[in-house]
């Protein structure tokens, strides 16, 4: 007797949050693959997960590792060019006017550590101790990275000035 819920229940409970985190950390192009690889790895390891473990933190930890793998693989595939565009942020000429898309681009521009801290604390709802265990450093440093990220978003998110949009 395992006492564990069927893995289907884990996917149902956390699938949306993990997808949201993957999209925040990697962008839409790589998020689907990261989500699939995260849950496939989680399924393999699920029987050994200790009873009472924080499942959301466990999944986000796996997603974080997958995101690093994806980012490194993308860097290896990158081809050097003589000149870089002024704004390297992915943005089509007919950029989506939707405010959510603007905010997503602002999140994409955050330094990696701030982006991870914002995604894991604000989107996944993990306490700073769990965030620190994932990204390294102390809980206080994780809190500071998340706060800096939110402050940066408040400054740079063009469609939504000030704290009216990001409380």
């Amino acid at each position, binding site marked *: 007797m395992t*006492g564990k819920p069927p893995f289907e229940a884990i996917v149902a409970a956390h699938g949306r949050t993990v997808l949201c985190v993957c999209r*925040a950390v990697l962008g839409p192009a790589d998020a689907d693959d990261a989500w699939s690889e995260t849950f496939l790895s989680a399924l393999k390891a699920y029987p050994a997960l200790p009873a009472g473990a924080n499942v959301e933190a466990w999944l986000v930890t796996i997603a974080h590792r997958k995101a690093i793998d994806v980012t490194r693989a993308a860097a290896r595939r990158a081809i050097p060019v003589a000149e870089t565009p002024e704004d390297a942020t992915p943005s089509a000429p007919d950029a989506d006017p939707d405010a*959510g898309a603007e905010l997503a681009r602002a999140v994409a521009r955050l330094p990696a550590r701030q982006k991870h801290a914002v995604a894991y604390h604000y989107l996944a709802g993990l306490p700073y101790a769990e965030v620190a265990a994932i990204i390294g450093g102390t809980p206080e440093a994780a809190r500071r990275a998340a706060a800096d990220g939110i402050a940066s978003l408040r400054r740079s998110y063009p469609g939504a000035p000030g704290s009216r949009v990001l409380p």
Partner: protein
Amino acid sequence: MNTYDVLARAFPDAPGDLSRLHGRLATAAERDGVLDVAYRIADSPVGPLLLAATEQGLVRVAYAREGHDAVLQALADQVSPRILHAARPGGGGMMLRT
């Protein structure tokens, strides 16, 4: 509206996104041999039936009145918690045909 709500709206999932990803997961899990129990719900003249199978074949047929969630939990306890809904289970011996 709190910070989560604002941020979550920046990363919405379109209708069907999670269903599509779930299908990919079930296919990959079966391919990799880590899906111990696949199940689906089939309509029948006596109401929805839960059909669950391992690689060895069908392990459980359950009426709705038994409580499908309770049946899945029992399978998790007695067989394996590596259980996924698989709309089109196939490959190996894990075939569910209705």
